[in-house]
């Protein structure tokens, strides 16, 4: 068993898949954390489907599908950031645009006539067919996305979790949202090539959703999400390689699901709540305040 796994890692196409998959997993997990926090996950679901229309259109017009994918996804991401902040209204608009885009994609495919294998790979991913050059390109783009998120980390966190105060504080909410949605679109476009448009959600939201259940600290949650994403990718590629003909995307989506479900059931986010102190019930200063403070002094620095 171990031997066959080690043998597997000697194949260049497996190495390429693992490398590019890991880059994308880290990027997607970082981006996914903020998508979940800001209630933008539906956008994360719609973007790859809209991107599919771009890819199908590109095939019809004889352009590389990847170009169509990137162009349309980024355009749609930017448009979503400008569209209303009202959550329900926004999701309805995104849904309408998404179904229009998928309809367009279907029409492009019908007009194209021939068997559009390249479009099929947009839908389900081709992680095992990535060249060394593409790995380097993917790595650079993921690095750029993560760096941009790090650069705007604090205002993005502020806008994500406390948008009204952020606006009053003079944070450029519109600009931050636009930049973030462009990063999301870029990440989605990269991830589509690995796991496919239909399964991007598993990488984008799966690890982050699990991580935010397990820890309340933003920094830790993002790190944990990235680790989970890399682990899913590693396990998915390895299992697919061992099984021979079962697709990578299937394994990644299944692992993401199988890890999330028990965490969702057993960690309801209410685990750490302490019981109200007697002082609080009587409405004056809690007696135990000084002790509580001393207790934290001994704990490590947590930020």
């Amino acid at each position, binding site marked *: 068993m171990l031997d066959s796994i080690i043998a597997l890692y000697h194949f260049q196409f497996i190495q390429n898949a693992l490398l590019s998959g890991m880059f994308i997993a880290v990027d997607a997990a970082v981006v996914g954390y903020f998508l979940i*926090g800001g209630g933008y996950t539906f956008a994360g679901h719609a973007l790859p489907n809209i991107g599919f229309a771009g890819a199908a259109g590109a095939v019809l017009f004889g352009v590389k599908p990847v170009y169509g994918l990137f162009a349309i996804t980024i355009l749609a991401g930017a448009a979503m950031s400008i569209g209303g902040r009202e959550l329900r209204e926004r999701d309805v608009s995104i849904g309408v645009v998404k179904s229009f885009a998928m309809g367009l994609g279907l029409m492009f495919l019908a007009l194209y006539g021939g068997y559009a294998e390249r479009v099929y790979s947009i839908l389900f991913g081709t992680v095992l067919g990535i060249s060394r050059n593409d790995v380097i390109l993917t790595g650079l783009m993921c690095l750029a996305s993560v760096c941009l998120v790090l650069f705007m980390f*604090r205002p993005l966190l502020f806008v994500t979790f*406390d948008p009204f*105060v952020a*606006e009053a504080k*003079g944070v450029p909410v519109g600009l931050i949202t636009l930049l973030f949605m462009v990063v999301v679109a870029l990440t989605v476009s990269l991830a589509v090539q690995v796991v496919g448009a239909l399964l991007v959600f598993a990488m984008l939201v799966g690890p982050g959703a699990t991580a935010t259940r397990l820890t309340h600290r*933003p920094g830790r949650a993002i790190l944990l999400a990235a680790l989970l994403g890399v682990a899913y990718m590693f396990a998915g590629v390895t299992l697919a390689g061992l099984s021979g003909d079962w697709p990578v995307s299937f394994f990644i989506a299944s692992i993401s699901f199988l890890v999330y479900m028990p965490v969702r059931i057993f960690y309801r986010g209410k685990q750490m709540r302490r019981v109200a102190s007697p002082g609080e019930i009587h*409405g004056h200063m809690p007696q135990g305040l000084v002790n509580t403070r001393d207790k*934290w002094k001994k704990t490590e620095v947590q930020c």
Partner: protein
Amino acid sequence: MRAEPDGMERLPVFLRNVRIGFGGRAIQDEMTFTIEDGEFIAVLGPNGAGKTTLLKLLLGLVQPETGEVRIFGRKPRRGNPEIGYAPQFRTLDTNFAVRARDLVGFGLDGHRWGPGFPSRKRRMLVDQVLEEVRASEYADVAVGELSGGEKQRLSLAQVLIANPGLVLLDEPLASLDIASAHEIISLVGRLCVSRKVAVMLVTHDINPLLQHVNRVLYLANGRCAIGSPETVITRETLSSLYNHPVDVVEAMGKKFVLGVET
């Protein structure tokens, strides 16, 4: 730094003949009043009288149609570090991804670029302000797990950590039970004294605030009145403000305004 610091204009809030409108309709006409350092002001009035719009005016999010507005001697501007603001509507209820101390930290450096590495000084500042509002106990609890009163304490801490001279609280008592409301009010009252910070607190019910506020700003019918609760919440003042007969009844040490929607 402050432009033309001259007498009255240096006060936390200075308004002269200010008219604010919304879609062509005047919400407030001829607003003229000042607020001094350390004053605790309750802002009252029916829905749509312009309470929230007034706060937005001071925050620089709404422009006056006419008149002069000065915050510590300067024109209102977005992101003014001298103002702390806690809005009425927030998205904290279902928020399990950040802890109390993270939310408070936003008030300190959430507007700065870069990842912001943890430091001992930053942690100390957050701990201090959490202690000041007596929220130390749940510093590391996820925001979504806290009660309404606890969240209001965090809002205050988030505002105070930036050391503002003027604090605007939009309906902090809404959806709080009476005991929690009293705790928040006496906390705000103490902060006015200890920090010399001017507070404008928007509310629907003046009664829990009667013993604590210095003055009341009552907005209604496109006009406003400001003064002590005894002078503003009277039959005469409110009737002339609303331009129709209004009665004020006092019972069990509380004031009840009759004849209007509040």
